[in-house]
């Protein structure tokens, strides 16, 4: 929660400083906040509800366990799809990935999982689309997915 505390502190200090310099601009900033927050709230609730479903019915360890050694293309694609869909914080994902490497999971598949986990967000794509438009979110995520596969193949070949 370090990030949240820091950003609240910075936002509070910024508002105070801004208020002392110009009330008008500060009010404009607060209106900006109100407008964007209200327009985002329903989508956020929908996205988070969907996340609840995915995390309940698609536990991470179950899917990663199904990726064994030398699963090749199939394992890499499966891991990439899984990494794109779930939302796991890095401090859980890396130890989890490491435990599967020890159990003999394919290194390319692990690379695919980690890379798509951070770069591709199927669940956050609707939120991304709300800010940048449908096409932007679609292209950024699909291109990231394709390049995550490329990265995974290279890593699988180099580190095997």
């Amino acid at each position, binding site marked *: *929660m*370090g*990030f*949240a505390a820091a*950003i*609240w502190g910075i*936002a509070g200090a*910024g*508002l105070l400083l*801004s208020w002392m310099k110009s009330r008008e*601009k*500060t009010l*404009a*900033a*607060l*209106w*900006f*906040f109100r407008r*964007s*927050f209200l327009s*985002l709230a*329903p989508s*956020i*609730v*929908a996205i*988070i*509800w*969907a*996340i*609840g*479903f995915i995390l*309940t*019915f698609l536990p991470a360890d179950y899917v990663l366990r199904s990726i064994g050694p030398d699963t090749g293309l199939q394992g890499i694609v499966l891991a990439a799809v899984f990494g794109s869909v779930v939302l796991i914080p*890095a401090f859980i994902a*890396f130890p989890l*990935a*490491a435990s599967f490497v020890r159990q003999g999971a394919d290194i390319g598949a*692990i*690379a695919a999982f*980690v*890379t798509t986990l*951070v*770069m591709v967000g199927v669940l956050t794509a609707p*939120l*991304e689309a709300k*800010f*940048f*438009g449908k*096409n*932007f979110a679609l*292209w*950024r995520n699909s*291109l*990231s997915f394709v*390049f*995550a596969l*490329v*990265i995974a193949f290279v*890593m699988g070949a180099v*580190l095997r």
Partner: protein
Amino acid sequence: MKIKPVPVILAILAAATVLIYMRRPDRALSVLFVSKDYLLEMLFILPPVLILCGLFDAWVPKPTIERLLGEASGARGAAISLLLGTVAMGPLYAAFPIGKTLLDKGASLYNVAVFLCVWASIKIPMILFETKFLGAEFALLRLALTIPAILIISGLMKFLEARSLIYAQK
């Protein structure tokens, strides 16, 4: 009449939760508890980010951003985007309002795409963490492949934008 998708999706989610509750109450409750945790996290992080975006919008003049991150900012603009994405912490959804504010202030699509992808994937504490668990070879090779991948992805986004495949007109 245009159908609004969000209320429809919310209704489907609510119906699904009720249906699951009738068969497996424990699963339905798990869905709600997991959602509650994420909702609290997002509600804790998004408001200050949006306040900062509002302040940024009110105080930073458009020409400044156009000069630093606009179409003509070149390699320096890309370097600034890369740096901005690396030093910031926090989840990707916190980067969306920031990237959008930059875009509205005149930053190029290329630079905003670099910023978003870097924010998502390159963080110094995260690299250290990855090194610890998956080894330096794994972490550094992945980093070395990710940076050019991000530049190519952003270049392709720029290419698509120039052909109006991202925004209808601009």
